[in-house]
């Protein structure tokens, strides 16, 4: 990384999986608003369904997700019943409209649930919203919880994308994050996926974890390449112990220094690209024949709450505790705590507790920010036109500085990220974000490092 860019390593930005980010959601949005927007969905409008399973067998100390360690499977069964009820409430509001094109199971740990329950949730989606064989089904899996025959049974249910939370193969790093899983275990899981005909296998890796070194992480990437997943996501670990008490269990002294984070990311990038993977956005990689790479190549890459995606649906319906839906310009987030979620669903009400109505101005800003994140280049004329003169001046001043430092080139209305500055994508997004001034005045404990 160029020396003049090092200062950005300590900057904190939103993740820009949405704009405005979930930090701007408030209690103005309630279940009735969500229900109303669902009623306006078009008959053949593509729907993308996200199912959140908040349970884990064991706590990983780095985790920033909404999860709980659960030892009583009976509680998970109650959750599955509530999911089914929620899906039917959504179905009642849709009244037959919308076509389910993609379903994504995330967590927590979706395979904390037995395959029977996962099948039951798919059945509920089928009856409440409609589900056909051409829908793409994806699931995140904890390799430690994959039982005999599970992968084949998931494939038989129609899951054609499976993603493994690998994080890091190094034993010491795994001990430091409380997630011990051997290479053999991951290798066996990938083997089962291949035998079951799953041709879209994805690994999630994390850099910036305690005990990570350049050498150890290079080895993790080598092992990843040896197992040949179709996609790899290389996320930066977000250490936010003030907001996420469980992260206080990590040995903060063992975290790699700031400047090493950029080096770890750059090294992973070199190795993966050298092995033939295509860069997708700023933290995903995919084999050239993978649908994600094809989407990138054809300019169809999108960004949603799961990261970069080829899912073309504008409308995302999130079910389960803390899930976020986006429908008709409305963001609606479900209650986070299980008790609150159950209370609303069991009283036959959608579980929305907060959200945001996207203003036309925010829609225009969001489009430009997604453009720069997904394509590394954007026409900012529309964004500037949407802003107040004061906001536009501030954005231009920030872009000027970035252009001066070579992070971007800025010609007329076209802003393009320098090829070696992908890792600073979120800094550029933040420069375009008029709300960012607000965030800097209030150094929030909930924003992660940009790099």
């Amino acid at each position, binding site marked *: 990384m160029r020396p003049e860019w090092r200062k950005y390593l300590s900057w904190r930005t939103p993740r820009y999986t949405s704009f405005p980010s979930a930090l701007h959601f408030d209690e103005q949005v309630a279940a009735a608003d969500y229900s109303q927007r669902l009623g306006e969905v078009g*008959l*053949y409008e*593509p729907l993308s369904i996200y199912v959140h399973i908040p349970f884990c067998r064991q706590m990983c100390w780095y985790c920033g997700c909404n999860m709980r360690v659960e030892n009583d499977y009976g509680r998970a069964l109650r959750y599955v019943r509530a999911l089914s009820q929620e899906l*039917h409430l959504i*179905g009642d509001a849709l*009244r*037959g*409209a919308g*076509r*389910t*094109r993609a379903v994504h199971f995330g967590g927590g740990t979706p395979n904390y649930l037995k395959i029977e329950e996962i099948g039951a949730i798919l*059945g509920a989606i*089928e*009856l*409440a*919203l*409609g*589900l*056909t*064989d*051409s829908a793409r089904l994806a699931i995140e899996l904890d390799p430690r919880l994959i039982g005999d025959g599970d992968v084949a049974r998931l494939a038989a249910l*129609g899951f054609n994308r499976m993603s493994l939370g690998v994080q890091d193969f190094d034993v010491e790093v795994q001990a430091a994050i409380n997630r011990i899983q051997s290479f053999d275990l991951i290798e066996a899981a990938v083997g089962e996926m291949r035998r079951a005909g799953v041709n879209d296998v994805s690994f999630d890796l994390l850099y910036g974890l305690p005990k990570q070194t350049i050498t150890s992480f290079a080895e993790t990437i080598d092992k990843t390449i040896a197992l040949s997943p179709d996609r790899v996501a290389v996320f930066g670990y977000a250490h936010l112990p003030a907001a996420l008490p469980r992260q206080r269990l990590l040995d903060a002294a063992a975290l790699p220094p700031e400047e090493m984070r950029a080096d770890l990311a750059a090294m992973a990038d070199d190795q993966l690209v050298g092995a033939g993977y295509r860069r997708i956005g700023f933290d995903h990689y995919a084999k050239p024949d993978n649908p994600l790479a094809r989407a990138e190549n054809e300019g169809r890459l999108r960004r949603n709450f799961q990261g970069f995606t080829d*899912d*073309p*649906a504008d409308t995302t319906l999130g079910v389960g505790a803390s899930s976020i839906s986006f429908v008709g310009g409305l963001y609606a987030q479900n209650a986070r705590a299980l008790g609150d979620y159950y209370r609303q669903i069991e009283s036959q009400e959608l579980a929305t507790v907060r959200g945001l109505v996207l203003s036309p101005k925010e829609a225009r800003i969001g489009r430009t920010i997604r453009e720069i994140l997904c394509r590394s280049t954007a026409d900012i004329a529309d964004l500037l036109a949407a802003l107040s003169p004061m906001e536009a001046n501030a954005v231009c001043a920030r872009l000027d500085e970035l252009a001066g430092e070579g992070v971007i080139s800025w010609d007329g209305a076209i802003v393009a990220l320098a090829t070696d500055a992908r890792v600073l994508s979120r800094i550029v997004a933040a420069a375009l974000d008029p709300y960012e001034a607000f965030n800097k005045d209030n150094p929030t404990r909930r924003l992660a490092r940009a790099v």
Partner: protein
Amino acid sequence: MGERSELAERQCGAYDRPKTCDLCDVRERSICADLGPREFAHVEKTMARRHVAKNKSLMVEGEPNESLYIVVDGSFRLSKLLEDGRRQVTGFLFKGDFVGVRPTKASAYTTEALQDSTVCFFPHRYLEEIAIDAPGVKDRLIARGQTEYHKAQDHIVLLGKKTAEERVISFIDLIGKTIGVDDGSARRTVPLPMPRQDIADYLGLRLETLSRTLATLKENGKIIEVSRHAVVIAA
């Protein structure tokens, strides 16, 4: 006749203009039945008949269409492409159904023959000319038939049903009302000329669920017989 009709002609083979409509076996049931003799004489003059081979398209989504079509024999599948490039079956047309109710530069649906079929077609331009003499002729022409707009209504009603059994049995009833044949002993044969995959797609069900549901319906007696291209229900 517009370019579209020429295209259709190329796709579907030569069309012929019957010397008389008297032989049309759907006429009595719906088509033309509400027209007065003078209107009918006009319509008969502008109408032409065309054979559409199995799997050939009558109308293509996104392409212009200038004619009103009436299914005289056979059946068609209506479908449209979703934003992700996948096809969604949106309805089925049978004998007596209409499609292409309004002239358009970009058809909303693709209409493909499920079997060798025959349609009559009326160029909208001529229908409008007739309308000067006989106002409302198009409305009366389609008064008894089902159009693509009725099909969309049917579809949303079916998709709103919350059990697979309800969806499947309602679908069979719907088709049975249009092309079901009573055998005189309280049994009605409902032809299913479309592949199972089309039915599953149309009903928002997985193929396995559809097969299982048909089996269940047969077990509990709601369907008397199931075969590949027909089911038998109580009349």
